[in-house]
């Protein structure tokens, strides 16, 4: 067979096409409306995060963007190529790390990568070097000839991430990429992802329900029950809900919430606390306690976190699923009380 270098990807479908353009995209499975018309645009080289709880529609959106699922409404394009009508063009420029494991357990790490290189048309002359680099990046170079079935969950995850980057896609989709990784590996993965963005200009779309992971993103879309409820940079999102967050653990949350609302505070009920979003937390603590009208057990005042943003927009909390990751004090506070 004649060996030809893979030419760089042809330009976007049209001048000024965005990396990802989504317009009122929807997916219905029978009765279930998994995605209810989401719209957003991701620029080239941007890191964009979908933050949402289980069942929010994150994976369904990714599947539509990656041409694996046919949308039932709206449209979406990658580099200007429509995901419904130009599936092959779309597939050529994306990489995808699935939420579930998709390695061949009976192949070695290297064989899995080699298979992927062929599927994505990596030029033969480059395959070995790229596999080496990918395995080094995720620190699996010593295990290259081992069967994936002998890998720990975290090692397998790292291999999948390396595989997703192997063909340097224009847009890399990561569906909950760091599930099951320890903090060091998470940090390493993020270094790699951000380096890929810096050096190759790769656009990154990730989904997560880890707050601290969403913080890596340039912009965050909060998705809940199939809808985007807020979309902005992390800083801007936090600013929209006020300067400070006051958390109260009370003897009677219902009563406290009712009283505070009546007193004109912007409040939300957490699972076992009442949260008030205010301009100057320290100064207002006294009046909040007075207005609550029920004994207060603990009070915490802090700058808003994404968790608070999420609570503000959805009226619900995202709970840390699996442990792991540098847990901010805020989370520990929640965790202790569970």
């Amino acid at each position, binding site marked *: *067979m*004649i060996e*030809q270098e*893979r*030419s760089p990807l*042809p330009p976007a479908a049209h001048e000024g096409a965005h990396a990802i353009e989504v317009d009122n995209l929807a997916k219905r499975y029978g009765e279930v409306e998994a995605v209810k018309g989401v719209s957003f645009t991701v620029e080239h080289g941007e890191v964009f995060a979908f933050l949402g709880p289980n069942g929010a529609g994150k994976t369904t959106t990714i599947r539509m963007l*990656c*041409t*694996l*699922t*046919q949308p039932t409404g709206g449209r979406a394009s990658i580099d200007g190529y429509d995901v*419904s*009508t*130009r*599936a*092959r*063009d779309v*597939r*050529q420029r*994306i990489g*995808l790390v*699935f939420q*579930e*494991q*998709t*390695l*061949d*357990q*009976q*192949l070695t790490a290297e*064989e899995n990568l*080699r*298979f*992927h290189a*062929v*599927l*994505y*048309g990596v030029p033969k002359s480059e395959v070995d070097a790229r596999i080496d680099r990918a395995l080094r990046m995720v620190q699996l170079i010593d295990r290259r000839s081992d069967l994936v079935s002998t890998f720990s969950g975290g090692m397998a995850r790292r291999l999948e991430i390396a*595989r997703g980057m192997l063909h340097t896609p224009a847009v890399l989709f990561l569906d909950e990429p760091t599930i099951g990784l320890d903090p060091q590996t998470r940090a390493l993965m993020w270094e790699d992802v951000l380096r890929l963005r810096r050096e190759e200009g790769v656009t990154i779309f990730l989904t997560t329900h880890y707050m601290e992971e969403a913080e890596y993103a340039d912009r965050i879309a909060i998705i809940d029950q199939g809808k985007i409820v807020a979309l902005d940079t992390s800083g801007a999102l936090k600013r929209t809900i006020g300067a400070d967050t006051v958390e109260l653990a009370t003897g009677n949350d219902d009563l406290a919430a009712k009283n505070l609302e009546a007193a004109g505070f912007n409040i939300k009920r957490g699972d076992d606390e009442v949260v008030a979003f205010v301009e100057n937390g320290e100064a207002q603590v006294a009046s909040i306690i007075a207005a609550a009208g029920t004994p207060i057990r603990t009070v915490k005042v802090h700058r808003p976190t994404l968790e608070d943003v999420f609570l503000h927009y959805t009226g619900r909390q995202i709970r840390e699923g699996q442990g792991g990751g540098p847990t901010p004090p805020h989370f520990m506070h929640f965790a202790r009380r569970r």
Partner: protein
Amino acid sequence: MSVTSTTAAPTHPQHHLAASSDLRTIGMVWRRELIRFVRTRTRILTSFVQPILFLFVLGYGMSSLVGTTGGFDFKKFVFPGIVAMTVVTTAIFSAISIVWDREFGFLREMLVAPVSRGALVIGKTLGGASVATVQGTIMLALAPLIGVHLTPLLVLEVIGLEMLMASALTAFGVFVASRIQRMEGFQVVMQLVLFPMIFLSGALFPLSGIPAWLAVITRINPLTYAVDPLRHVVFAAQNMPAAAVARFETGVTIFGYLVPLYLEIVIVLVFLVVFLSLAIVGFSKKD
């Protein structure tokens, strides 16, 4: 719904390479089948147990009943059928692995790649067919024990026919796998389809002198047309006296019409192409 991997604008540089990249993909999928085959030694061994059991139990059991005609007995008759049985079961079981790939997620990795579904299905079919052909050919080692003479030409003919039969059956299995989401489903289909197909193909008993209803079923069964040529070439290489030829007839007749060898092969080829196409369509569906 929509069939994916429709060709894009011809200006696309990659499309000049489409054929060569498809070939590379086919080669890789094929290689993966072989690697996995070599790694699962228990599967290789167990897949011989059933045919060997049939060969000896059925072969020796029936030989005493059927008797020997001109030095030819039932063991020799059933031997090509047992080789076919080995090929068919191995082919189908190779195709099953797609259902495993689906359960273990690897299928997604393949389906999201910018390669044609055709290349994936063809690679898989060739891989399964190669494995099945190897298994069937290993069975030939038992020929001397049964008293069947092998010549180099015969071995080549057998390998060719095995490859054809194996490709057709793997394509069929891949199609079934494209429609089945879970492992249990495959077991059911195999019990209801694979075993009846083998038993009603003439692999294990002569097709002449059977009741009419059975004759109809065997003539509808495409496997019949894959088994008969195999038996035909094996018998042709034996020094069979006329009495034995008459006793252990080969050839499939439909209303007195003897289906010629080439037509049998055409029938199997059509079966192959039909199920290959159906499998490609099956994997082009999106949910």
